[in-house]
């Protein structure tokens, strides 16, 4: 078995293992072990990747494996990773690992819960390693569908509505996506020859301008829906609010990243002319979504809603930076994906813990939690500071790379947008500090909360894993940033060439 396919196989094996367990204890142990192995494998992959690059391997994708899967349509199971995919895999395994520990006490139907969770995980991993558009789409769907069950069954509040809304909106995105993908497929060989779904091969051909202009919106919006692109973001607040903790973590932390990843890996890489020409339109949308999400978060009372809107703002930043189409900004976009994935997962984990204790998510009903549960509260402050871009934590690195990169754009319009986007850092500070001030500081509002316990060991595992990752990226970002920059070269080259035309 090759090193990449293992990332899909291990979750599946873990799922099979769970079938043979009884009760919560066995299930969660198997899941934790499986994902622990996955985490180790992710670090091993990182190590292997650096080793390979140190040998001056210049190919765009490493660890390539290719099997013919469906001959008549030339569909392959084709995997390979570059630095960006490695980074995303690392992020995913960290978040999934933390997510397993956050759902340590899933009392009802634990087996089914963990199986669905792992199915989602294997879909995400499969997405990131795929090079073939068709298998990529397959894994994408595999990641999206279990969400329906996870929210609908184990969620809280208005869960049926939210599950339905989320799934339908994402399916709507998928519908656009499959059209776009088929468009790519049927134009993948303009000079005759075999049609292909392989990204690397499509990237080599130049798709006619009109075709690009026609299919770009399909692909970009299709992925953009998952990346919470304004105005297709409204599944996010409801979906997150109803989802169980681990699902919110995975969804905001990882799944929303599929959108951003797809936007540049498929839409922009394969249709560069259209990206250059239509970029401004989406740039306006993302600029709106950055500021709009941040302001939206100020007015919320529910912890999860605050975070969902903040995710809209932060994920808007990802697509915003991608659309700047230069190396620095795109580097920042990917850093932002990772950074946002980690801190938002931490946020949702913490919200889950707080909700599990106080049984409310309304910030005005809580207060003074710092004294009652110091560990959780300190972690919340750290997550908050990461979110508002404090140096030394991951958010700063990402945001600054985005701002500096975006400002390098020659066009004045793009720089004006950058300045507008910068203003979000102030608004972010406002909503983060508002929550911290109301929720954690101040006197204890509800006397019944006085006796609530602080974090248990498994919760600490979950928090500490994420915090270490956040701090590690925040303190030493150069390796990650360099790895991503290097891998962005072919994509940026294509976009630059398109700009000259």
């Amino acid at each position, binding site marked *: 078995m090759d090193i990449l396919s293992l990332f899909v196989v291990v979750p599946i094996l873990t799922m099979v293992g769970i079938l043979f367990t009884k009760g919560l204890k066995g299930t969660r142990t198997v899941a934790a072990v499986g994902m622990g192995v996955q985490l180790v494998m992710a670090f091993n992959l990182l190590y292997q990747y650096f080793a390979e690059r140190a040998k001056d391997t210049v190919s765009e994708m490493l660890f390539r494996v290719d099997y013919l899967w469906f001959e008549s349509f030339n569909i392959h199971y084709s995997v390979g990773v570059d630095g960006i995919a490695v980074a995303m895999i690392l992020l995913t395994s960290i978040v999934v690992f933390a997510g397993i520990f956050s759902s340590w006490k899933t009392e009802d139907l634990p087996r089914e819960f963990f199986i669905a969770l792992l199915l989602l995980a294997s879909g995400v991993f499969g997405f990131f390693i795929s090079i073939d558009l068709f298998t990529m789409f397959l894994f994408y769907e595999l990641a999206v569908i279990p969400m329906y069950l996870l929210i609908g069954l184990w969620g809280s509040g208005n869960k049926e509505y939210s599950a339905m809304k989320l799934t339908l909106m994402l399916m709507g995105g998928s519908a656009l996506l499959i059209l776009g993908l088929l468009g790519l497929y049927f134009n993948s060989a303009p000079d005759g020859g075999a049609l292909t779904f392989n990204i690397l091969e499509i990237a080599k051909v130049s798709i006619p301008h009109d075709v690009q202009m026609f299919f770009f919106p399909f692909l970009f919006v299709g992925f953009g829906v998952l990346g919470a692109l304004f105005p297709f973001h409204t599944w996010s*607040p409801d979906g997150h609010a109803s989802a169980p903790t681990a699902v919110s973590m995975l969804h905001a932390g990882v799944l929303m990243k599929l959108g951003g990843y797809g936007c540049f890996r498929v839409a922009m890489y394969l249709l560069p002319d259209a990206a250059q020409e239509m970029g401004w339109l989406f740039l306006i949308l993302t600029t709106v979504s950055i500021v709009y999400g941040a302001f939206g978060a100020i007015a919320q009372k529910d912890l999860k809603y605050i975070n969902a809107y903040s995710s809209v703002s932060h994920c808007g930043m990802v697509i915003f930076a991608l659309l700047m189409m230069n190396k620095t900004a795109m580097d920042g976009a990917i850093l932002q994906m990772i950074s946002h994935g980690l801190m938002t997962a931490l946020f949702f984990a913490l919200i889950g813990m707080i909700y599990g204790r106080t049984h409310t998510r309304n910030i005005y009903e809580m207060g003074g939690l710092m004294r009652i549960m110091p560990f959780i509260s300190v972690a919340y402050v750290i997550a908050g500071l990461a979110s508002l871009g404090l140096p030394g934590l991951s958010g*700063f690195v990402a945001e600054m790379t985005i701002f500096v990169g975006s400002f390098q754009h020659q066009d004045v319009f793009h720089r004006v947008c950058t300045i507008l986007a910068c203003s979000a*850092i*102030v608004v972010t500070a406002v909503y983060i500090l508002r929550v911290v001030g109301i929720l954690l500081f101040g006197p204890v509002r509800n006397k019944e909360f006085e006796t609530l316990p602080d974090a248990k060991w498994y919760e600490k595992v979950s928090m500490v894993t994420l915090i270490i990752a956040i701090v590690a990226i925040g303190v030493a970002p150069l390796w990650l940033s360099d790895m991503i920059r290097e891998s962005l070269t072919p994509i940026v080259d294509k976009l630059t060439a398109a700009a000259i035309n």
Partner: protein
Amino acid sequence: MDFTYTLAIILLPLVTFLTIGLLDKSMPNKLAGVLGTASIGTSFLLACYTAYQYFFVYGMVDGVYQKIIAYHITWLKFTDTLHIDLGVILDPISVMMLLVVTTVSLMVHIYSNGYMHGERGFNKFFSFLSLFSFSMLGLVVATNLFQMYIFWELVGVSSFLLIGYYYEKPSAVAASKKAFITTRFADLGFLIGILLLSWYTGTFDFVQLTQTSAIGTLESPAIATMGGISFMGLSVISWALILIFMGGAGKSAMFPLHIWLPDAMEGPTPVSALIHAATMVVAGVFLVARLFPIYAIAAPDALTVVMWVGAFSSLFAAIIACTQYDIKRVLAFSTMSQIGYMMLALGVSKYGGENGLGFTASMFHLTTHAMFKALLFLGAGSIIHAVHSNSMLDMGGLRKYMPITFITFGIAWLAICGFPGLSGFFSKDEILVAAMQNNTPVFIIAVVVAGLTAFYMSRLFFSVFFGKETKYHHTPHESPKTMTIPLMVLAFFAIFAGYIPFSKFVTSDGAAFATHFHWNVAIPVTLIAFIGMGIAYVLYFKESTIPTKVTKALKGVYTTIYNKFYIDEIYLFVTKKILFNIVARSIAWFDRHVIDATMNGFATVTNYVSNSIKGLQSGQVQKYGLVFLMGALTFALIFIYLVTK
């Protein structure tokens, strides 16, 4: 010469922060206190050694103090030319700041051992203090704009954590939030300024940015280009520097971004002494000083802005300070006013040689002010510790109970008033001379402020230590040794810091020049200060009814000033009413009721349509059969028709 060891000055507090912070409760309080103090003490000694090495051993090359990059690594790469480096730069101002910061920080650490004794969050407090020291030291040795921005944010957050130290007190929480958000807003300007500057020049590096040629022009050609492009009447470089100054104004509490400073006094008093009097709030001054060659040579417009903002803030704050009753708030406004002084001095300065007197004066005043203002705050802390109140109305006649505090506070009082022979006298004199030589209106403002300063400080001093005999619940007693020793050390500096020949060390272009004492400025200004003190003596030395009468007579004016010209209320109106209630609420509403409703609308329409056509699927096979039959017949007829035609 190898200066790599200077890295230890910065890293020691970081290590201490991590150690105390991670061990937290499992570490005994005493140990945490000692550890924190020892590490900053070591930093202080190293800073002294560095200063000695830099000024006396390494000395000047070609008559100019060099900028030495003692250490640097690339931390993050943006493009080939733009990268964030972390490093240590040694030049006269950074070495001076290293000394100032470590001195005050050490004194505050020692003091806190006594002041915070028995507090529940003792360890937390020390770890935050270390975090702050680390950030501040990292800021002053920054080799590039972005490193400065990084540590700029870090001091901001340490300030936030320390102001909100009493996190169960709602006012403290509100104050910390206000401080962070206000400075954050200012930092937005700073960030955009950095982006603009770096876009044109392609570098963040201070050395490259401020490199000047022999004839006193900037070597960076890009800056000249920036000077050529104009936007709304000012050149781009001026805009960039004004935006950067906005960041400085936020940190240094300059009008109109000063609103957070008085509230920041909610933090423990040692914090106010360290962060909100001596070190962090002068970061803005330091920032302007750091970029001074660009300001002075390429963007005189921006420097004019600095000058007027400084002058106005100093007058504005001095007026408010005359009416406040909270001892710490008086000191806070006094700080704002004195920082305005420093800004003003920078603003009137020119680049190079004796024309750079304002620059030297500003740095000089920064140093002396750090000493006597820290002393004032620590003294105030000692008083608050004894009286358990912040209000001057609860104090009076304390000289009998607290002799050491009384004497040291008195020294600081005289120093800030500009009493001849003490440190404040010399530094203020230089500022006034610089102002007089360059700009008469600003000079007049500065003189007025000097008089006002003498008045409100004397008012504070007299009403606390003399004035009415107050009955205390507990008889106030002198503070413990850990608190009085720092007072005495700082008092020593407050007296003698003025005798340092500053123009020999810290100048705008690195070359030493000689300053002359200007009797024509010193004598009248000293007289004005004495008048201020005299008025305060009459009004406050003994209990008297005159102040009440004066306030009654000037009722409207007095209330306006007492309420700080209602600036806070204006801010509150804009943020709470407009931004929160109108903008944020309406966006939230819009999102739920327009965008989300549209999405829900699609679902509703789909539902409606399917509901209205579902009757066709009656489930009755017979109906289907009929329809089928009819369909088949229809097609058959059409077919037959077509065929037969």
